[in-house]
């Protein structure tokens, strides 16, 4: 509503998989007003400069999930972020890229087959017998409903997925969006496939254990759903239900807890040995020596204990929901 404007340099990623060998950038000098969103900027490129500029968009108010792109590397839902807010972070040159340049069909439009394949992999629907002519609804308490914890607000824009570094290095990893979807149903008291869903997510590499807990997904999500929190909840549910398998990821979680319980602080060397086994740990010897020299790890007999060990142990006891035996 204000007349305040800024002169911006907008660089847009251009690529047509049919005609271009390599992508390139087009530069547009634009006078942008305070109320204009990144989507408005893209519309103006298309409508005022070059009609062949291509991107997905529909609802224009942050609910359909079509227009996710990256601006100066930051995951952005184009119809939710104002150009001025991004100028505050990045200055007056904005670079608009597709979510994943390697998957570009044309300009901002990418092939999302990988994203939807992950979506399909988590049984993304309520598993229950459907009463076709119900006269009463299921009774669900407000507390039970809240366990879903906004996971049903996910709009499948892919901002988290295409920002996840674990997906970058391991394309098989389920990734945050599909795991949020899994939690949406695994938190639902009406669903009958909680165990089944968790079982499929136990596979190393493809399942849910490759999350490196970097919080990129929480940072990227335009709906503030906090995917990593849902991933953690799936991990916890796995332990609560006693479905955890004896593998390196689970041992890493268990070993972490034991280390804290025993010392009040993390014994990094022992955690690696415990997670990967006596033989597996051998391949880390070069790192271990480097870490030892810097004082990051110590010999087992020198492992210090926290001053507040008793208090920490009590906390662990109170908060732990995991069901697994002492080693």
């Amino acid at each position: 509503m204000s007349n305040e404007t800024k002169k911006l340099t907008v660089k847009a990623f251009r690529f047509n998989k049919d005609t271009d060998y390599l992508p390139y950038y087009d530069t547009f000098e634009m006078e942008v007003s305070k109320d204009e969103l990144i989507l408005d900027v893209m519309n103006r490129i298309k409508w005022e400069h070059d009609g062949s500029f291509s991107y997905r968009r529909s609802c224009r108010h942050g609910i359909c999930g079509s227009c996710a792109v990256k601006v100066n590397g930051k995951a952005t839902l184009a119809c939710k972020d104002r150009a001025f807010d991004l100028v505050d972070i990045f200055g007056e040159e904005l670079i608009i890229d597709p979510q994943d340049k390697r998957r570009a069909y044309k300009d901002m439009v990418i092939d999302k087959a990988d994203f939807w394949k992950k979506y399909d992999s988590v049984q993304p629907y309520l598993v229950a017998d459907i009463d076709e002519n119900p006269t009463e609804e299921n009774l669900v308490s407000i507390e039970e409903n809240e366990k879903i914890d906004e996971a049903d607000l996910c709009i499948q824009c892919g901002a988290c997925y295409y920002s996840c570094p674990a997906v970058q290095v391991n394309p098989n990893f389920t990734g945050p969006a599909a795991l949020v979807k899994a939690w949406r149903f695994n938190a639902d008291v009406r669903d009958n496939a909680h165990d089944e869903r968790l079982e499929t997510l136990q596979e190393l590499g493809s399942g849910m254990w490759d999350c490196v807990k970097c919080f990129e997904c929480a940072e990227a999500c335009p709906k503030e759903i906090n995917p990593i929190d849902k991933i953690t909840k799936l991990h916890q549910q796995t332990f609560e239900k006693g479905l955890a398998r004896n593998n390196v990821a689970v041992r890493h979680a268990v070993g972490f807890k034991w280390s804290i319980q025993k010392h009040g602080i993390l014994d990094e060397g022992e955690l690696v040995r415990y997670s990967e086994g006596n033989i597996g740990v051998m391949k880390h010897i070069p790192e271990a020596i480097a870490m030892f020299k810097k004082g990051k790890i110590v010999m087992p007999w020198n492992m210090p204990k926290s001053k507040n060990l008793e208090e920490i142990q009590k906390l662990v006891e109170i908060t732990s929901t995991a069901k697994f035996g002492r080693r």
Partner: protein
Amino acid sequence: MSIPIHKYDVVIVGAGLAGCAAAREAAAAGLSVCVLTKLHPLRSHSGAAQGGINAAFSDEDSTELHEFDTVKGSDYLGDQDAIRLMCEGAPETIRWAEKMGAVFSRSEDGKIAQRPFGGQSSPRACYAKDRTGLTLLHTIFEQADRDGVEFKDEYYVADIIYKDGKVNGVFAYNLVDNEPMIFNAKAVMFATGGYGRAFRINSNAHANTGDALSIVARHGLPLEDMEFVQFHPTGIAGSGVLISEAARGEGGKLFNSKGERFMEKYAPNKLELASRDVVSRAITQEILEGRGCGENKDHVHIDLTHLGADLINSKLPELRDLAITFLGQDMIEEPISIAATAHYSMGGIPCDMDGHVRLDTKNFVDGFYAAGECACVSVHGANRLGANSVLEALFFGRHVGQSIVADLKANKIDFKEANPSDVKAVMDRLEAIKTGNGDERIPELRNELQDGMTENAGVFRTEKSLLVQRENLKDLKARFQNVRIDDKSKIYNTDLQEAVELSHMIDFSAFIVEGAILRKESRGAHYREEYQTRDDENFLKHTMTYMDKDGNLSTEYMDVVLGNHELAERTY
């Protein structure tokens, strides 16, 4: 010419609530079903529905009351048999969606919670915070997917194959690579949503270009009651993006620049909770008389601050977020700026209660169905009540799906082979747009269309403004023959798509204007300054308009189905 032909029992165009619900029912009955959408199903505009979905659940409420409110809301133009069917089916429909997984907000006793909405005598809008459509769309899509419906996303349907009174399939092209194909089916259903994009200030998604209406009309089939376009009272000033009626339902108050709560003047009993057309006119009137707020005096304020942060955060979180994004206004701290915005199309493809598309006032097209916003059954008549659109889409989507199943099981529809020659005309049209080398550009023509429709065929209409717009549209249609698009490539050609969509908007807009010129009365959302009252003697009837090959329109009228609810003056 070779062109792939895919065969199914049922082809559905549009993957919003109506399309997904119909597809789910047909697939669950064992039919082969393909749903074509120009978006991904989860991007459909049903997902943008915010406030709620009506059902008379509570002890204080009844189906009859829901019916009455809907009939009255429609300004008596709604067909009462269809309204009864929908209102009676509402409780089961919503519980069915709940059983399939919809995450409704709950009351203390664990039941589906309900809130008040405009024009309703009882709180009957079931809701999921302020994102009711999102959970419903996702849920129905998920279950359709679970039941084996084949979804083809990002396919643009550009025509129907219509021969000898029967629809045999559709012509579509894949947006990704522009490959054309035919989808040949026993039954074709249109569930393509609304057409708000024809107006400059609108609440609609970019996708809501009413393609189906013009596709149908170009075959000489009628469109019904097109003059009835709902303007929602509370669009965000400037952009028109919607602030749900839930804002008024939860207690929002409207103020003009003088700080007057002006609804006291226009609807002394219901105030802000009067019907949408009433509130939209009130807001527009205040602005026209110079009592608008802000530098340009082009909006009014809705004040929600008295509701408190807790209620706003728990029940209206998305709305708060929208006002912050678009206006920089936090509704917890200050009133927010709103004005009327084109929102919903009451009219559309005429069909009976079971979704059969009408050939004229008496006969039907074989193998052709419609449901949801693109259809006109008519349950909304001259004005739709809040939280009845999601109900219509879900109820009639499901019901028409079942009706298709019944028709196919009874062998009422034959499969007719489609031929490549059936789609030559549409392919030539597309090619002409792609290769056109004139000097008209799509964005300019579209701006002119949208500006003209908002100026001349908006909240207040006069004979003069409408005649101006009729000429504008003729001019735009002629100039469209002379367009040139920048994008000549085969890959994801949105330039071509926007051109085709514009041609659709120009065609159906002529129906809106024509119906409005001929309807010399004011009823529901249609308001004529020269004829400010309802005229039941002459206009208690549905408009049915047809377009011939040269673009000339002709209109006849169809009786309204009346019932228990007798005609009365409509006051709130």
